[in-house]
Every structure is written in structure tokens, then in C-alpha cells.
């Protein structure tokens, strides 16, 4: 197993330009969470955009599934934005940035966003549907 694992450590075999590019553009492992958070934010924008397009196309109609889904995505997106800002403040500052209150806010917003999305998804799944049986007088 040790021999197999040693296959992954080949930094001395990489060309110098790859290492130079790594130093120029690489993101430190400790800061790597910044990139998933950034992508997460982009995905929130994409999904939010799709919901807005659907709302414009289909309207609100009688149920509020799409507006509530959008509200959930907005809460979750704001949470990810604050999270990413904290990553950026650490990465570009002179000390490790950590605010307990901001961290708590991130978790709370994420929880509210997910709760709204899940509440409405489950409500839709378990909503009572009209009976498909024919009325007896027909």
C-alpha cells in the first residue's frame, strides 16, 4: 500500500512551468474552500435565474412553490456569499479572519433557506390529491 501511495508524490517530476503556474494561480489547500464557495454562489445564481425565468413564463398561479423556492435559494445564496467573503478576508488580510457572529449568521441563513425549500418540497409531495374515482352517480 505504501508503494501504491508513493505513486502520488511526483512533484519533482513535474516540469518547472507547472510549478510556476501553480504558484501564480494555485489556491492553497487551506483556502480551497474559497473555490467551492465561489462556485456554490455561481450555482445559486444559475438556479435562481432558472426559477425567475420559470416564474415569468408560468406565473405564480395558485401555489407558491416557485416564489418560495426562490426565497430559499436567496437565503442560501446570501449565506454562501457571506461565507465566501470571510474566506476572502482571510486570504487577502494579514490575520486569519474569523467572526463568530458572521459564522452563526451563515449557518442560520443556510438553515432557513434549506428549511423553506424542504418544507415546500415535502408539502407538495404529501399534499392531498383529488380522488381519481368516478362519482357513484355516473
Amino acid at each position: 500500500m505504501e508503494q501504491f501511495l508513493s505513486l502520488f508524490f511526483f512533484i519533482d517530476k513535474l516540469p518547472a512551468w507547472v510549478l510556476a503556474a501553480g504558484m501564480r494561480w494555485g489556491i492553497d489547500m487551506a483556502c480551497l474552500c474559497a473555490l467551492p464557495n465561489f462556485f456554490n454562489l455561481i450555482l445559486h445564481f444559475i438556479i435562481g435565474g432558472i426559477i425567475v425565468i420559470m416564474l415569468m413564463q408560468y406565473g405564480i398561479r395558485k401555489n407558491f412553490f416557485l416564489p418560495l423556492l426562490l426565497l430559499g435559494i436567496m437565503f442560501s445564496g446570501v449565506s454562501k456569499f457571506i461565507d465566501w467573503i470571510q474566506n476572502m478576508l482571510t486570504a487577502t488580510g494579514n490575520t486569519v479572519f474569523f467572526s463568530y457572529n458572521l459564522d452563526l449568521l451563515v449557518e442560520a441563513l443556510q438553515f432557513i433557506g434549506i428549511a423553506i425549500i424542504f418544507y415546500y418540497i415535502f408539502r407538495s409531495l404529501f399534499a392531498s390529491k383529488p380522488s381519481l374515482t368516478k362519482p357513484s352517480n355516473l
Partner: protein
Amino acid sequence: MKKDLLIPVMVIMGVLATAYIVVFDWEYNLLEAEMGLIDQLLLSSEENPAGLVQQGSVTAYLGQMIFWTFSLILLGLVWAGFLFPKRPLVEKIIFSLPFGVLVMPLIFVIPAWIISAGKIGGELFGTGMPPYYGPTVGKIVYLISSNHEQGYEIAAVLGFLVVGLLILGITKLVRKDGTVS
């Protein structure tokens, strides 16, 4: 007709990401080692201008984010080109971002995951620490403290791009009826 692979691929990525998170949340020694080095490695300073995050510049930091976003979208589009060519562009982009995040740190995540999973298994089953844990964790900590993992990130993305382009080229050459043009 070729079967559409979007859902199976996304499910596999989700399983891999969950396994990755569960193991690293459990076995956080590596993270702890890295966190202890943040001041030295991550933060910019006059003594360490080559540092890691572009000398503390917000615009350069945003530049890094944009660079990786476009690089990983390009990588994802190449792989989506043969995995699910018929899917719309927005779905390919949605696939690209998590796919890129999984690929980027892969070279040091695989050994780190194996030794962490081995240690967890050893604790659960009472077999003790696996013999390969110590030497490998030493190599990983050296890798991180020497700022070499960034070179691996570039190498992994380039490697996957080349492999993806090769597979895409082969699938384009092979016709629907299975004959090679």
C-alpha cells in the same frame, strides 16, 4: 441510442463528495496541521511576497477565482462532451463546477483519503494504525508546508483535460454504427 449519463455521473460525484467530507470531518489531523500553518502559508507578508494568495490583493484573488472558474468550466465541458453530449449548456456548466472541484485537489486528496479511511477503520475494528499512515502523512504535510500542492492542482486539471480531449476525439471519430472513420 446512447444512454444519457448525467444523473448517474452526478450521483457518483455526490457519493464521492460525501465520502470525502465524512472521512475528512472524522479524521481532521491533516486539516489541523494545515490550520496551524495558515499564518505561515496563506497570509501574504513582506517577508513572503511570493506567498500564496497573490500578495493580499483583492483583485488578484478575484482573478484567481475567475481563472479557475473558466478553466474548470472548460474542463467540465470537454468531459460533458462525451459523457452527455445532448444535454443543454447550462446543465453542462452545472456539472462542470463540482466536477472541477473534485478533480483539482485529487492527487493529494486520494492518498490523504486512503490513510484517513485506514486510520478510521483501524480505530473502529481495533486493528490499530495502518503501517502506511505515518510515512504518507509525513509526505503530505511536507507537500503542504512546501507549497507544492498548487503545482499538483495545475497538473491534475491539465491531466484530466488531456485525457478528456483524447476520449472526446476518439468518440467523435467512432461513428454511431461503431465503425471508425
